[in-house]
């Protein structure tokens, strides 16, 4: 199943939104952190894992999802959250630690939650697998439509949670898709250095489909994701969709990634300009329409950042609220 022109435009728009959002955060992140870098300083404190280069994995899968479905992302969640349709203003406000944020400033960029679109995060590697499969179990038990998708990095596949949950998801035929974003790095350790058999091949061990998508290409990811999502919706159980992607920056802002060779970095390809060119070449969009779309996305992102900056901080003692329901 190939994406329609409308779906391709949506994929470009969502990738661009994620990219422009990350660009804006990157700029804001350095405020208050020069000349001496301190992660806790400035309007945007804390660790910041951005999605530069990984945008295709989010749009290619989320293009197939509807309101009944659920999505769990990892510690690098911006592209997935945006493709899933998490409220951008409240997401930006959360990243800035504001009262108007998704969680009122209790979560931050690594812990984004939005029940309106059944979205959650796991800041701990691979540990969103269980909650993801658990939502799938709930859908099955309640005989409700909807599947769950859990995003993980390539480093996650060597955590016990990955194996435990895949085994049970397959055993109980849960409507679940495990997405592995293979950006070749678990912080500084490459996939080849850490993993003897890649995740998609391990699918054989769970008697479920496994597929590897090369090229970091939204159209190819879309096609592969269609198969995985359909498999889950049909009640046939989980699958593993491993997607080759690129981490264009360090693990977090401040990681100069000195463990990568210059040649390797120079050889990295940015998927967004390439997709833009393709859409223009294939006349999916004409240049004026493309530019109008880009201006609209830029405006949305600008508004989200303005909303975040203009919002109040929570009162300090709001920290005491919401520990218990």
């Amino acid at each position, binding site marked *: 199943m190939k994406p329609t022109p409308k779906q391709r435009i949506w994929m470009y728009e969502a990738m661009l939104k994620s990219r422009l959002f990350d660009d804006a955060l990157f700029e804001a992140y350095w405020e208050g952190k020069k000349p001496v870098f301190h992660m806790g300083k400035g309007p945007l404190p804390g660790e910041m894992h951005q999605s530069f280069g990984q945008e295709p994995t989010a749009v290619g899968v989320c293009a197939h999802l509807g309101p009944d479905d659920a999505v769990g992302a990892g510690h690098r969640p911006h592209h997935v959250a945006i493709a899933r349709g998490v409220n951008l203003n409240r997401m930006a406000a959360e990243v800035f630690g504001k009262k108007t944020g998704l969680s009122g400033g209790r979560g931050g960029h690594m812990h984004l939650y939005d029940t309106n679109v059944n979205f959650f995060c796991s800041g701990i590697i691979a540990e969103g697998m*269980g909650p993801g499969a658990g939502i799938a179990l709930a859908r099955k038990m309640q005989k409700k439509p909807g599947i769950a998708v859990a995003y993980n990095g390539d480093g996650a596949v060597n955590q016990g949670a990955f194996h435990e949950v895949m085994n049970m998801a397959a055993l109980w035929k849960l409507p679940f898709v495990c997405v592995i974003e293979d950006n070749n790095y678990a912080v500084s350790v490459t996939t080849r250095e850490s993993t003897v058999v890649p995740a998609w091949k391990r699918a054989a061990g769970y008697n479920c489909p496994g597929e590897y998508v090369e090229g970091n290409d939204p159209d190819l990811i879309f096609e592969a994701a269609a198969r995985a999502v359909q498999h889950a919706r049909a009640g046939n159980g989980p699958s593993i969709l491993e997607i080759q992607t690129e981490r264009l920056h360090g693990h977090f802002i401040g990681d100069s990634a000195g463990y990568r060779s210059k040649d390797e970095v120079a050889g990295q390809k940015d998927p967004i300009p390439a997709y833009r060119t393709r859409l223009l070449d294939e006349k999916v969009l004409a240049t004026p329409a493309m530019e109008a779309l880009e201006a609209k996305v830029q405006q949305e992102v600008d508004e989200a950042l303005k909303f975040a900056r203009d919002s109040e901080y929570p009162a300090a003692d709001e920290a005491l609220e919401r520990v218990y329901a």
Partner: protein
Amino acid sequence: MAQQAPGTGGSARTLTMARAGREAVIAEMRKDPNIFVIGEDIAKLGGVFGTTVGMAEEFGAQRVIDTPISETGFIGIATGAAMAGMRPVVEIAFVDFIGVCFNQIFNFAAKTHYMSGGQFKVPLTMMIGYGGGYNDAAQHSQCLIGTLAHVPGIRIVTPADAYDAKGLMHTCLRDDNLTIWMVHKAIWGLGWLGTAIKTAMATVPEEEYTIPLGQARIWREGTDVTLVGYGITVHHSLQAAEKLAAEGISAEVLDLRTIVPLDREAIMRSVSKTGRLVVADEDYLNCGVTAEVLATIAERNPKILKAPAVRVANPDIPVPFSRPMENFALPDADKIVAAAKSTLRPAAA
């Protein structure tokens, strides 16, 4: 006098804690199709400690789910199911096993409500067995209640008898948070751990009832010294109180009943009256529940103590296997008696 249980009329029976607890689960499952039970050996076996006997027959394999030995996986799955509207009950037979799944408990189930700003609720109840005294050594005899109580977002109840086991289980199942219902193996009423301790058996009404969280229970009133415990140490304290009474010392026995939240007012009330305090706990001493009880008095009014308080707890050693060494590590009535007497001795000149 011990607190009188309501509804102990014609419908009441004497039950073990295991039976009383599962009666509550079954009653709630009959009413709410969103409740399901998940864990190891709970369907065909009925739970290692008999907590789920009869449930698979009544509710079927869809709602009483035997899992592989994958605690991280199934606690994570239960957490996700709870986020999506189910109300899972998870059994972990031995609290020692939280070592392999603690991340899902303290980073997910306990924090999701907070980190999501209250958007996602996690109404999940865990049934966990704890404690030693039967030579199962350091990896199957721990309490780890202090470990769990240290983490915000978890409610912990520790019933000491069958009446509380049932009432507190109903409370947990109706709560919208992660609740942990913990029973000491020696009072659960297991055939393979000898005769059930009589004071842990109780008259239990057939009707449903809840017990409020954070409400301690006075098992025995006294005037000279307060013996604070929970779970098994309530029974040690009751035996100690008998022995002390024979020597003319009047001990009050206070059962904390729920560790989180803790009934600090009840502690203050009792110690204000007696002026002396012994806290008994089978868990590790360091940074444990006993320290929290003492801190309550230190913060609120240390002047109520007429003598230094004494803690009887595991002396910060892994629970040893060999009988004399294990007995050395565990609290018992004699240790509590000795501690109580030490609070009554005049201070050295």
